[in-house]
């Protein structure tokens, strides 16, 4: 997937789709259990300097920037 970027860099508001998780065993497992899996729609609804709040399948999570850096997303329209 060429045009993906980390969730930490995504502007607030619009909806994106998870393209891949670039992390080790523990973290990628934890994230996928929460629903950060291929094609899942995700949007950023708030941020502070250290963390962001995202919405995923109707549920909200606060993630540290560090974690958000491991989650790659691409534009929703690419996948329809």
């Amino acid at each position, binding site marked *: 997937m060429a045009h993906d970027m980390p969730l930490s860099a995504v502007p607030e508001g619009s909806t994106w789709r998870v393209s891949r998780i670039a992390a080790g065993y523990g973290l990628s497992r934890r994230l996928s259990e929460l*629903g950060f899996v291929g094609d899942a729609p995700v949007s950023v609804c708030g941020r*502070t300097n250290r963390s962001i709040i995202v919405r995923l399948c109707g549920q909200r999570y606060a993630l540290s920037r*560090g974690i958000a850096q491991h989650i790659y997303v691409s534009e929703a329209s690419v996948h329809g």
Partner: protein
Amino acid sequence: MDRKKIRVALAGNPNVGKTSLFNALTGARQHVGNWPGVTVEKKTGKCTKGGHEFEIVDLPGIYGLSAYSLDEEVARDYLVQERPDVVVNIVDATNLERNLYLSMQLLELGMPVVLALNMADRAEERGLGIDIPCLSERLGVPIVQTVASKGLGIDALLDAMARRAEGTKAAAPPLPYPGHVESSIASLVSVLEKDPGLTSSYPVRTLAVLLLESDPAARRLVEQSTAGASAQTALSSIDTDAMEIDIVDARYGRIRSILGQSCTAPSASGTSLTDVLDTVLTDKYLGIPIFLSLMWGAFMLTFTFAEPFMEGIDWVFGWLIGLVSETVGNETLASLLGDGILGGVGSVLIFVPNIFILFFILAILEDSGYLARAAFVMDRAMARLGLHGKSFVPMLMGFGCSVPAIMACRTIENRSDRMVTILSAPFITCGARLPVYILFAGAFFGAREGTVVFALYVLSILVAIGSAKLLRSAVFRGETSPFILEMPEYGVPTLKGSLLHMWERGAQYLRKAGTVIFVGVIAIWALASLPWGVEYGAADSVVGSIGRAIEPLVRPLGFDWKLAVALIFGFVAKEVVVASLGVLYGTGEDMLPDAIRADPAITPLDAMGFMVFSLIYSPCIAAVAVIKKETGSWKWMGVSILYSTVLAWVAAFAVRHIGLALGY
């Protein structure tokens, strides 16, 4: 009538109403303990309906069964080893996609699942339509709708549980994985089947899938089996990293296809109340001021509401002590009952209103969903101090009592973060230390009493923060763990739920008052009365000898033997510092301020040093016991006692010499 016993396990994600459901099912018939060998809380309970007796185990709240966290490992071990007759899987109807992930894993383990579809009312409000018969058929499990917080659907759930337990345990149809995953599964299955020991605990197909997911527990199990070596060979030719993601994707893919047939999404995803509240409450600039004013309000409410209750308790104990001295003829017995038990236990029970009200307010904040936001808002500030956002709640509870504060550290996943918080939280001045300040500040600082007490509160926060920074930089190095925090929907907390929550935590304090402190006050009374015939608490009693023996140690701080004795007994519980001074000065608590003010051995500067020492030195015995339990280490328990006591000595020494230098 001989009832049929049915063993039930309750499984579900955190924040989906699992505790409410457990309470609704079992009522008061529950027992709280620990899972063997670990500090994860285990709740069990019973209920009966018709000819059935249900024994219900509340598994930890988990997102999956991958043995990634301790909670998950505990839950999976229980399911696999105990094979319950029914697994009630509670799911949040408003968030089915994520919740069903755990359901998928339960079904793969071959568990006899009954699905409790909770919060269906909220899903309906949001316009989410769920075709329950269709969902039930596609998943192959019975589904019961519940609103656990209101106790709705419980009867139907019990009926479904009974039917499920009696029904045939037909394994759910296996989840089909993509072709390349299936062929890897098949090659592993053929290897694993050679060791019959392996297949007795897990379905062999499930075990193969777990191996492909690089599951640590499954790998350990297989490595120890006779099939270990050949399984290793088979695995080495497979790219498990890629496989793992494909497996998770396949599960979610199946969930989406099931939901696509059985659910209708709301027409428009308009802005919800939660969105609006979060915009304000987690705002970059407003978040912290809002949080701090809420906390300030909580403390003001606590102390205002508690006041009349405290006066009431004080009055009752005063009356009881009077009654004892009038009616009990035997002088020794009267002294034991009055000076010892009633005086000691009364000085502890007086904090019960404070602690219960504080816990009640915290329960309301937690149940409404706000505390998760508080952790988020505070995370940045806490990170600067070397702490995790989740450390904030234990620290806050520390103002009530260190025991539940240390227990609350369980929610912090990362070990280093947890250890730092456990070891720093006891420095937060607990409710039990307040009477020491009130006594000494009131006796020596008159009108400036309030300022002095406030300064001690600030000092306690500074000491806790300083210790956290020190521990973080010297012992538990490394970044604070990355932060994933679920933010539940805001909701109106129910009175019953919040009261139960308050009771669970407050009862720990009551138990402490009933056991440790009760024994402690009797011990003090005995030491102050022995050898027989001495004046109660006099210098030639056992207590007096102990005090004079250690007096040289605290002499540089300006403390005499009575203060030394009070500090020793304060280890039993910090409340006992005041109670034992009452004993040693031979006065009631009303007269105690006058008595210590009149004692030429105590100057205002000594009083200040004594308050600082009381604030910092070793946590009480109950807190120390919990530190041992939660860290699982005698060493860290010892470190906690020694470090805090040395620090207290240094601080009190500094207070004295700075004070002397300033001419006090």
